[in-house]
């Protein structure tokens, strides 16, 4: 189809391919190109293919790459790099249902503390256990359906664990800290859950080098429940968890668990990769 009245010259073709024509002229040229094979050939020679390839790659990237989830966008917003955000986004204990459950548990525990003098023990019982459950659900075969594939990849299992644990613990500790502000009594009592929470969480990680993460979490939870309930039943003290002896014991558990993780740091990755 070459029966048109005018054709592009090399100068105009060059300006067009470099994007140096007005939008009206560009539209006119594009309409003409649809009908004129001679000009298409002329333009083909003037086009920079690498630039076209880059533009095309950008179009493909924007059109075909699915939009990131809300959680991933949130993590990116607080400075987490995009690859790490993707690894964290699959953590079951960061799903909306889990976060809603955490909030509901904390609110109920807070209500119990506000309405009954013994109710503070419910808050001190529940707050340290939440990050433990969250961490148990953050890694391992039971939490990750792709665990066996993940185990065969070169990515550091310790890094994956550390990142997920940090995010999960933050997601539990922050609402618990906010809830503490509304607890009756001293600030020290209100924050008495923090030490045990850290001790039980690190204890769960240390125990996970020997048994499955969910078993480790159950063991640590039972241990903590025993301590709180014993204080309530034998000493009639709803604040038993806030006593110096319990707090010191929590620090000891934290220190021992951290030492275990440190000693096993070389094998930690492989221990965490176990298929079952």
């Amino acid at each position, binding site marked *: 189809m070459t029966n048109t009245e005018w054709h592009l010259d090399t100068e105009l073709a060059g300006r067009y391919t470099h994007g140096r024509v007005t939008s009206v002229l560009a539209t006119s040229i594009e309409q003409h190109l649809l009908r004129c094979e001679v000009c298409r050939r002329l333009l083909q020679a003037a086009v920079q293919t690498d630039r076209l390839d880059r533009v095309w*790659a950008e179009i493909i990237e924007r059109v075909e790459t699915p939009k990131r989830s809300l959680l991933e966008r949130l993590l990116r917003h607080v400075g987490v790099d995009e690859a790490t955000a993707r690894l964290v986004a699959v953590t079951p204990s960061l799903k909306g249902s889990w976060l809603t459950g955490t909030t509901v548990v904390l609110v109920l525990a807070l209500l119990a503390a506000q309405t009954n003098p013994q109710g503070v023990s419910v808050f001190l019982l529940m707050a340290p256990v939440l990050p433990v459950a969250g961490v148990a659900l953050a890694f391992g075969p039971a939490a990750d*359906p792709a665990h066996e*594939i993940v185990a*065969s*990849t070169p990515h550091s299992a310790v890094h994956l664990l550390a990142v997920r644990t940090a995010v999960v613990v933050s997601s539990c500790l922050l609402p618990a800290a906010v809830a503490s502000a509304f607890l009756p009594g001293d600030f020290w009592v209100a924050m008495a859950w923090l030490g045990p929470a850290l001790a039980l969480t690190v204890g769960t990680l240390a125990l996970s080098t020997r048994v499955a993460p969910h078993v480790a979490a159950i063991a640590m939870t039972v241990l903590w429940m025993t301590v709180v309930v014993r204080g309530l039943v034998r000493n009639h003290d709803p604040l038993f968890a806030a006593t110096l002896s319990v707090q010191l014991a929590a620090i000891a558990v934290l220190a021992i668990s951290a030492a275990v993780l440190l000693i096993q740091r070389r094998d930690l990755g492989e221990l965490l990769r176990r*298929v079952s």
Partner: protein
Amino acid sequence: MTSHTTVRAEGIVKAYGRQRALDGFDLAATTGVTGLLGPNGAGKTTLLRILATVLAADEGSLRILEQDPLEPEGRRHIRRRLGYLPQDAGFHRGFTAFEAVDYVAVLKEHTKARARHDEVRRVLDLVGLSGVAGKKVRALSGGMRQRLGLAQALLGRPQLLVLDEPTVGLDPEQRMRFRDLVSEAGHGRTVILSTHQTEDVAAVCSQVVVVNRGRALFTGGVDELVKLAEGRVWVDSDRDPRALAGWRLGAHRYHHIGDPPAGAELVEPGVEDAYLLLVGPQAATSDGADQERDAA
């Protein structure tokens, strides 16, 4: 690419409690496709998990890509050059197909987003899933999820591909496509796959290993395997009770393997005939450690 032995396993033992899933297994695999053929519980999955570095052998010597998988550095080297499709390849159901493969790509150290996304699109295209890249994993059919598992295994053009039952859940057309894919992957690289499908072995494998009770009963080419059954396959108009195994081909036509009676109408054997002669027809119903593991 050199023709070095990619995998050399000697006397591999792996036990779960008292049950030995692998009992002195030997394997040497170079470039090309090696097929592990064996009944349920023969030890195939355990062997492939060891080759994929997700399990450690209890005894024996093993070199993968010239590295020792027991050494941390060696393991990392192997994992950087490995693609693995486990028997039950799971994915987060809330992910899209694209995100599921992208997640594995991040773990395979593809850290640059644009290049990683291009690679994800390439492997999804290879397995024919480009059209459903934006669909949630939970909305994919079983066959599609199996292809998704294959896609993640192909990320980064691995030197060693370990595929456990890759054709499970694929329809005949998808299996044809899979065979093309695996044959292509076997050029200059090493593919080790396990299967129950003797047709897959005949179509794509340059080497076949017949596995039973944790040991390699046969290692060699497909032709060599088939030769084992020469003169031991016949057809008859009635079922022959003396045959080791027999099945109906059509009206008044029975296929038999074993020691043929005098004057029997011998026919060309196939891979299935040789396989059954080696493992025995009872192997098809045997239980073993792999099944125990899967149940656990």
